[in-house]
């Protein structure tokens, strides 16, 4: 029972959406359901925020490792929540956008969230280097192909590529590294991407069907009472 109702809901909703494509009067139901989803997601914020506070409060109470930093999280969380919900420092009345220029909420974004997130993102520059060093090794045939493809593309994006292979005559110009790099991007790379994409599309269709038919039901957890 506790498992069958949800299964039935999934089936009905899934089928309804499939059928709606063929029935003009309910054609837009998919969009409406999308909005519904985002509304449900906001309710889930209570669960998420509650869980976050619970975890960090727990750490503070127990004085477990690094509890001082949990305090930072909790203070930051509530400060931002209050600033945002009451639109503190907003340049106009309640109808101004919460991210309006000059509001404290936006200032927090510009001076706090933005540097943090762009620096986190920029760490990738370091990690592409360390990953290249660690993983591009000619251990076997596949790894060698991976290595060579990456190396040619890298070389093609520096002046070195042209310096090393610029002497190759026009009638063999495909072997000039920059040209070769373009060719790899346009041909084998394209083929690989396409094969993966077709596979994914097919997988999504099959997986969706398994979900609607209730063949795949692990996401519902067990038949327990919890």
């Amino acid at each position, binding site marked *: 029972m506790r498992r069958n109702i949800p299964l039935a809901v999934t089936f009905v909703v899934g089928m309804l959406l499939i059928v709606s494509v063929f029935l003009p009067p309910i054609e837009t139901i998919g969009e409406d359901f999308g909005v519904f989803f985002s509304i449900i997601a906001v309710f889930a914020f209570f669960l998420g925020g509650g869980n976050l506070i619970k975890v960090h409060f727990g750490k503070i109470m127990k004085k477990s490792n690094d509890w001082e930093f949990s305090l930072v999280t909790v203070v930051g969380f509530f400060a931002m929540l209050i600033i945002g919900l009451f639109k503190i420092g907003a340049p106009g009345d309640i109808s101004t956008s919460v991210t309006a220029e000059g509001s404290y909420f936006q200032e927090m974004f510009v001076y706090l969230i933005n540097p943090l997130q762009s620096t986190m993102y920029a760490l990738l*520059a*370091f990690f*592409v*280097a*360390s990953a*290249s*060093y*660690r993983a*591009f*090794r*000619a*251990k076997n045939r596949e790894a060698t192909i991976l*290595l060579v493809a*990456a*190396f040619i593309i*890298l*070389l093609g*994006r*520096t*002046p*070195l590529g*042209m*310096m090393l292979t*610029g002497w190759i005559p*026009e009638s063999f*110009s495909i072997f*000039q590294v*920059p*040209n070769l790099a*373009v060719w790899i*991007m*346009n041909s084998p790379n394209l083929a690989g991407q396409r094969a993966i994409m077709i596979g994914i599309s097919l997988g999504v269709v099959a997986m969706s069907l398994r979900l609607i038919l209730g063949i795949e039901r692990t996401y519902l957890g067990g038949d327990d009472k919890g």
Partner: protein
Amino acid sequence: MLLLTFSDIGLIVTLVIIAAGLGLILKLALKGKEIDRRIIFIFIFFSVASPIIFQIKFSEKATAVVKSIYDKIDNLPEGSKILISFDFDPAMAPEVQPMAIVLGRHALIKGHEVVFMSLWTTGQSLLTEIINEYILPDFPEKQEFIDYVTLGFKAGNEGVLKVIATDFKKMFPVDNNGRPLDSIPIFDGVKSCSDFDLVISIGGGKPGPKEWILFVTDPSNIPMAVGVAAVIAPQMYPYYPAQVLGIMGGVKGAAEYESEFIGNYERFKDMKTPGLLTMGPQTLAHTVIMAFIIIGNIIYFRKRKKEAKS
């Protein structure tokens, strides 16, 4: 006397440090010792930061696709008519604006008569900015209407192209300032796009280089060159070399052109080259990454040899 600029010193110091560091690591690598990743991180930070601080540029050797544009402009007889269309917006500008600047300079210094225009609404202000702030200050001797003219933006997307392919003055009866084209010397003898010796479109969206090729230059066999954002470049290659004589792809393409240009024109040796400047950190970082890939493989094979022995 040896005259070294600030950035020359920076370049030398940077290269020496990186080379020495890599040499040291190579020595360790030959013993089969793995490198701590923090060392790689330091190299990356250094190779990105120092070109920014010292404004380091590396000279690029132009690839054939870029060189052919350069040669075309260089070899056209003085007084040839060139049409340059700025088909981009501010979002795309960092990538393609360097091309617009260097092409404008090159065309003017060769004494060609240049016509600037744009198919994008936002192109108008970019056009004015690029011409007035970057190109003209270097050419005080050039006169508007005789050496160059700005037609500005014209709405209508491909529609504009279809018309100017056969009749230029119908679409542009007057220039940017309202001056009739008939009274502009450059347009003496220009009826349609076919009367230009070269058409260049710089952009990456729609309408852009692709539309120029399809509607104007390919049907009328007009020499055409394009400059595009890096992501678009692969889509342009099928047109090369039959329909377009050359392609500049992304900042790299711009940098190659700049390098070729400043290498050949003493007067512009010290000009601002945004393309080459952007490529500085890229080139150094890419080279360092490649060096580490090679070192990684040396270590791997050394280790395998050792294991095979024992």
